[in-house]
């Protein structure tokens, strides 16, 4: 083979990422060293340096210590352990490999989870002398938690057990019993000696009873392409490319599914639909793209799309929710503080999130669940999460890309936890539909829906339009027609007037100044309750006393209160009086009528003032006022 052929062939190889789990004692570093060495990728001078180092610090007594090749950092070399994830690269004639080398000690769950997050396959090492131990179970649990679909169980140090088939079979049986319930699709067993090189690259003649492949043969041939999700299109927009005003390209790495030119798509969260116009790359337009390609898409229609949005097929939507359950791994030295609002980053979206409930903690050694109210470093548990903005996600099991997220501490900005979404929160799974934090809110009388949330949904301001004026000035006519109009336009609007409130809520009260004050206090609080829940309230009351109107304004809130004054002289009102109230007052059968035997204070600074006799359309003016002040429509 000449060099050109070599390069052309090399270029066609695919890439497999693998994780190795096990402790130094299991011979993990020796196994990796051998994979690197025996696949003839160890550079000459690295070997030279190794021989030098072995004499000074080696633990293998004379022989080449493969582990020394791998331990990068000085401090770690002195301790003789690997304490972080290190990435190694090697290549065979058939495939390229990236190894995430992670330590096996209990305190380093964090590192193993990190290495496992990108791996296609995991090699779990067992010391043949010890068999399946706690650590094996822990590693396997983490591998299944992170969704790795292929496991190689390497039973190492067979040389120290006289290459006994019996020992090997017993370990395989023990492990099978343990691993089966975890539902990992592909688990393979290999009897090896990393130190002697048995069954690593070539099959060993010291274990003639073993008829399988060598570890490397298996690594070269295991199928991984079909592990990717090609069915559910998830295209999380990373960046909008705008080289000119009339061009908008939406750039993303395809998380899952296949996107084709001409596809009908939907953009989340707007749910607007369009057609894929082109799929663009630097190397030309392509007809379709699939994970993990990074491409740019243009659409037929000019719709608003920005970073954090997601393009999907309209008949195959992800979950769009603010509540979900997840398995969380705590990664920070600092334990979790309850009530913290974290940043959550999922796909290309970042928003805020809080942990509403911890269902349980999983003991990684016994795999038993127990109760806890917080997490410390390396602890894992099932939690209920609420986010500020809805996320677009799938269960991690179905989709590694859209089912994963990180939590960022709002103060230190450290990546304090990572999670795998289990599913949308379903109410029947909940012990109670109300989560702990909400119980506190209810106890304090604060609603679970904030006023801005109501206002956003209703598209209006929760304000009070308070119409004041003498009896017969035309308040009710204006109030009632206003409600009709707003209602027809789609507003959520409530009307209160003297008759309706006095017929029930204030029925024991008369028209004396003290009872009038109490009546107005009740109406004002009623307005506030409704305003707080986003409802527009129209009030039509004579409300003659200036000091009481000030009190009303204080109760409702200055910014939510709009005083409308209808200016009418007493003669106009008498003419306009349909109920004969002024006559009754004249006769003396009715007391406390403003303008007759009680003073009406003309408001000093009303928001709006109308002349009752003016024939201009008061309603239109009032509607303009609402619209200009973005009360309705917003």
């Amino acid at each position, binding site marked *: 083979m000449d*060099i050109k052929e*070599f*390069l052309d062939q*090399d*270029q066609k*190889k*695919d*890439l497999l990422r693998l994780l190795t789990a096990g402790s130094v004692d299991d011979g993990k570093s020796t196994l990796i060293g051998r994979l690197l060495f025996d696949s003839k990728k160890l550079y*000459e*001078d*690295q070997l030279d340096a190794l021989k030098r180092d072995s004499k000074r610090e080696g633990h293998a007594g004379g022989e080449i210590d493969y582990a020394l090749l791998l*331990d*990068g*950092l*000085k*401090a770690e070399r002195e301790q003789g352990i690997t304490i*972080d994830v*290190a*990435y*190694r*690269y090697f*290549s065979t004639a058939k495939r*390229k490999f990236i190894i995430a080398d992670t330590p096996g000690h209990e305190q380093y769950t*964090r590192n193993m*989870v*990190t290495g496992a*997050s*990108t791996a296609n396959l995991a090699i779990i090492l067992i010391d043949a002398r010890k068999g399946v131990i706690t650590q094996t179970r822990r590693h396997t649990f983490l591998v299944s938690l992170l969704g790795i679909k292929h496991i190689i169980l390497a039973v190492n140090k067979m040389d120290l057990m006289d290459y006994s088939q019996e020992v090997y079979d017993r370990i395989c049986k023990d492990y099978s019993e343990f691993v089966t319930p975890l539902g990992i699709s592909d688990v393979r067993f290999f009897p090896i000696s990393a130190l002697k090189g048995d069954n690593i690259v070539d099959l060993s003649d010291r274990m003639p009873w073993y008829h399988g492949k060598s570890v490397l043969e298996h690594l070269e041939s295991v199928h991984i*392409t*079909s592990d990717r999700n*090609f069915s559910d299109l998830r295209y999380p927009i*990373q*960046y909008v*490319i*705008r*080289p000119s005003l009339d*061009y908008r390209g939406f*750039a993303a*790495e395809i998380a899952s599914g296949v996107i084709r030119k001409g596809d009908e798509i939907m953009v989340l969260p707007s749910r607007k639909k369009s057609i894929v116009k082109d799929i*663009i*790359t*630097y*190397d030309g337009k392509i007809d379709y793209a699939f*994970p*993990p*390609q*990074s491409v*740019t898409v243009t659409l037929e229609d000019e719709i608003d799309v920005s*970073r954090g949005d997601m393009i999907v097929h309209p008949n195959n939507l992800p979950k769009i929710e603010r509540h979900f359950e997840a398995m969380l791994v705590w990664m920070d030295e600092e334990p979790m503080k309850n009530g913290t609002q974290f940043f959550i*980053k*999922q796909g*290309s979206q970042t928003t805020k999130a809080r942990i509403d409930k911890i269902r349980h903690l999983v003991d990684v050694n016994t795999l038993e669940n127990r109760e806890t109210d917080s997490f410390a470093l390396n602890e894992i548990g099932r939690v209920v999460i609420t986010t500020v903005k809805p996320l677009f996600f799938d269960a991690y099991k179905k989709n*590694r890309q859209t089912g*994963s997220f*990180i939590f*960022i501490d709002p103060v230190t*900005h*450290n*990546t304090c936890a*990572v999670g795998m979404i289990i599913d949308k929160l379903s109410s029947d799974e909940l012990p109670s539909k109300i989560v702990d934090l909400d119980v506190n809110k209810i106890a304090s009388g604060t609603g679970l829906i904030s006023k801005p949330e109501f206002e956003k949904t209703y598209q209006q301001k929760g304000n009070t339009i308070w119409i004041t004026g003498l009896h017969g000035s035309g308040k009710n006519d204006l109030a009632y027609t206003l409600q009709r109009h707003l209602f027809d336009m789609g507003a959520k609007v409530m009307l209160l007037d003297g008759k309706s409130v006095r017929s029930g809520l204030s029925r024991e009260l008369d028209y004396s100044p003290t009872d009038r004050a109490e009546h107005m206090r009740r109406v004002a609080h009623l307005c506030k309750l409704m305003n707080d829940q986003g409802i527009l309230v129209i009030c039509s009351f004579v409300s003659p006393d200036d000091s009481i109107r000030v009190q009303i304004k204080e109760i409702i809130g200055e910014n939510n209160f709009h005083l409308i004054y209808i200016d009418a002289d007493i003669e106009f009102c008498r003419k306009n009086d349909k109920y004969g109230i002024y006559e009754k007052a004249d006769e003396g059968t009715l007391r406390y009528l403003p303008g007759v035997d009680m003073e009406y204070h003309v408001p000093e600074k009303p928001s709006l003032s109308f002349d009752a006799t003016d024939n201009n359309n008061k309603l239109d003016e009032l509607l303009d006022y609402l619209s200009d002040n973005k009360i309705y429509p917003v």
Partner: protein
Amino acid sequence: MNTPSYSINNLRQLEAESIQIIREVAAEFENPVMLYSIGKDSSVMVRLAEKAFYPGKVPFPLMHIDSKWKFREMIKFRDDYTKEKGWNLIVHYNKEGFESGMGPYTHGSKVHTDVMKTQALLAGLDKYKFDAAFGGARRDEEKSRAKERIYSFRDKFHQWDPKNQRPELWNIYNAKVHKGESIRVFPISNWTELDIWQYIRLEKIPIVPLYFAKERPIVEVDGSLILVDDDRMPKELRDKAEMRKVRFRTLGCYPLTGAIESGADTIEKIVEEMMTVTKSERTTRVIDFDQEASMEQKKREGYF
């Protein structure tokens, strides 16, 4: 579904992953910069950036830290290629160091590298208040780099603390930094030397001619083959120069970068040589031998 048609080869997979990283940085940081060293890895990285934003322009500047002792051919290549491509290139150097006559022959490689490379880099980053800086480092280059994150967090003194790196899972990167803190981003972390050569060949990416073998005036200094690039090299050394057919596996300051004897004048021949006569590439850089674990030490101080 016919899955085989959705297979991707290793180079295109690495390319897609690098583009995802570059776009993520452009989207999330206020003021990123791409450090451009003129070397082959940098050239690949810049091509990836061009791909990431095509048909738009790369939305951040490139910055070259000029130690003033780079090979002349590097500077010529930089200026010609930048002009052709229309990049927004910032060239930064340590003015005080330069004016005081700083150089490896007078001050030794350690002081020169610290003042003209590390300090110049930190000053350049501070001057423009960059909150993210792309670098073309690869994990397979050297032992301490094998554990480097894609997003490598630096405190406000640009220091790297190997014990205090953020967990990095999947392809979700944490871009949150406080004022003054920054992130070094290594989008080609997972590429190997062979991948780089393959990609240059495949994409026809121009590289500095020094990478190809040619008869050049060479002096042997402590076992390293040093090119006589200008007359700042002491006369007693220059006088020993002889023409030898050499190429460079890595480019830096000419007095600190050793050549290898080679007849490889095409990419294919370079790869062939690399696959047969294997010498890990950084061993031709003199600075790494200065002290035990020296790369790790330099990283801690803020050098890549």
